[in-house]
């Protein structure tokens, strides 16, 4: 098979996607055991979006997304340990047990969060890009949101200003066809979400989100445009979540066949096939990657288990930067 990408890229894609998959399979189990609480939304099935983005951006570029944030956060370089500890609510978590599943953040990795109010991050992403433009550096911001979020009014206000001010931002709609139980046909006449960009003359593309290659290529073009001060791009990435919306959703609104159809296009299998077809790795080498990932996930769970809860005094910390804020306590 001819491919413009080399062995290293594929091996990276394979390992990172496998890590996200196994991390979240474990997350699902631990949720069932009530080790993890609250709302918890798995990314399983959508891993190629994260993997294909990562090979197209720089480490110092910015990322922001919604509550379905585990996959993008780990792909962006956050450690499975700090993420698992956060899911447990432990003091060693990526936000010290303050945010939980929906609100992963890492300033160091320039991961500007998991956000819980649908669509809110569309404007925030443009704002993060605004600051980079303001300081005249060449970072770009990748801003993810769902097909459901694409129906919020903020998208339109933001798209308009992002174009008006030529912001270095890439808007990525991860279209997994459902917003909770609502399929896209039931909430809009415009099924081609990428065409929402037309009204603002924003360059846009529809992308196969089950393919790391396609995500990478579209993202690379968009990143180049943003970095060279060519302004924003809107990518509608067609993907699929294998699991329900959150842990409490039995997903009765879709058929088994539909889910199977996407599993047949599973990005991890696709990438593995390319690796094997090109003889870029032996079975033993793949097994070694699998084992490494398995260990990493195991270690993250052990780390979370052994970590302490935050001290009760943390209740009054991280509300303000001001450490002497006079809270009302009675």
């Amino acid at each position, binding site marked *: 098979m001819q491919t413009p990408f080399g062995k290293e890229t594929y091996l990276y894609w394979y390992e990172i996607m496998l890590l996200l998959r196994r991390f979240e399979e474990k997350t699902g189990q631990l949720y069932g055991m009530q080790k993890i609480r*609250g709302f918890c939304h798995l990314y399983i099935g959508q891993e190629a979006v994260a993997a294909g983005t990562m090979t197209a951006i720089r480490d110092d570029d910015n990322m922001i997304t919604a509550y379905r944030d585990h996959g993008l956060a780990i792909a962006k370089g956050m450690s499975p340990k700090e993420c698992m500890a956060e899911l447990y609510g432990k003091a060693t978590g990526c936000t010290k047990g303050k945010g939980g599943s929906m609100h992963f953040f890492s300033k160091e990795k320039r991961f500007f969060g998991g956000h819980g109010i649908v669509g809110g991050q569309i404007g925030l992403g443009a704002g993060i890009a605004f600051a980079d433009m303001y300081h005249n550096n060449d970072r770009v911001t990748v801003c993810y949101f769902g097909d459901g979020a694409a129906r*919020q009014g903020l998208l339109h206000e933001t798209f308009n200003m992002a174009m008006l001010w030529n912001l270095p931002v890439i808007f990525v709609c991860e279209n997994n066809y459902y917003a909770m139980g609502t399929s896209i046909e039931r909430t809009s006449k415009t099924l081609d979400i990428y065409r929402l960009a037309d009204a603002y003359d924003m360059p846009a593309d529809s992308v196969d989100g089950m393919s790391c290659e396609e995500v990478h290529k579209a993202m690379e073009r968009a990143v180049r445009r943003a970095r060279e001060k060519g302004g924003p791009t809107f990518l509608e990435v067609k993907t699929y979540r294998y699991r329900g919306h959150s842990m409490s959703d039995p997903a009765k609104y879709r058929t088994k066949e539909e889910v199977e159809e996407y599993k047949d296009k599973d990005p991890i299998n696709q990438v593995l096939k390319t690796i094997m077809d090109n003889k870029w790795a032996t079975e033993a080498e793949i097994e070694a990657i699998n084992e490494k990932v398995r260990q990493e996930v195991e270690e993250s769970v052990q780390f979370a288990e052994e970590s302490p809860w935050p001290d009760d005094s943390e209740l009054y910390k991280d509300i303000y930067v001001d450490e002497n804020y006079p809270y009302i306590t009675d």
Partner: protein
Amino acid sequence: MSRIIPFRQALREAMQEEMRRDDSIFLMGEEVAQYNGAYKVSQGMLDEFGERRVIDTPIAELGFAAIAVGASSNGTRPIVEFMTWNFAVLALDQILNHAAKMVSMSGGQFSCPIVFRGPNGSAGQLGAQHSQAFESWYANIPGLKVISVSNPYDAKGLLKSAIRDNDPVVFMESEVMYGDEGEVPEEEYLIPIGKARIAREGNDVTIVSFNKMMKVALGAAEELAKEGISAEVIDLRTIRPLDWETIVNSVKKTNRLVIVEEQWPFASVSSEISYRVQKEAFDYLDAPIRRITSADTNMHYAPNLVAAYLPDVPRTVKLVKEVMYLVK
């Protein structure tokens, strides 16, 4: 005849009964129709009333609230379900700047007979953006009525009154109470807006609360009874207009007042009650009015920080003992 039914069914019955008697009423919101409600409050309503009257919306709170407010000014009586009140913040402009002001701005020509309803407050380890209690926010707004219910009986009777009311009504439920069961009559009944309920009679101290914090108030009263302290517990049910007479009458009997609420402390419902009671019953108070609110912080995720954030029975009991000068 009475039956025991869950909270969500009581709410559903209120909507169904009102929709059967008045064709101008429709239900609109995210996942209310085909999915049968995010919390199954509207289960079966699409089947009964059809797509004209049970309407799924996109995730566009500002937009569908605006459409409902507009429709309410032109001959319909919408019920707008917000998946939670946290998301209604996107629609606050429509509620505050439009619905609440329609009668005033039009010199009484136009009105907005509309109900905005949904679950309010915390529901476990949901983090800062999904755990907020908004009664005091909406109660601050002239032009709105605000109801916040604690049990299936009140939920049904008050929701029916809210739907029949000719002004915009904010109606607050709780995610964690939808499964709670309670006695609800077979026959039709309405509960008037603006009337509190004495949930438990007592003589030594008055505890005022509403919504799911009623569980804390009643739990504390139960604990106190074991120690021979008789607490009167008042469920506000309506926040605006506030039934301060019921509170004042109780305080005149008990001479002590503790308020338990899930609001943040600053300018909260307890702040308002405290002002009113000190003005109307100053000479009857034997101790300062005290309160337990949510912490003056955002809610964190970790379980111990959630527990530290919310009012609970032990702290309420301790506070009651303080106003009775039994402990320091």
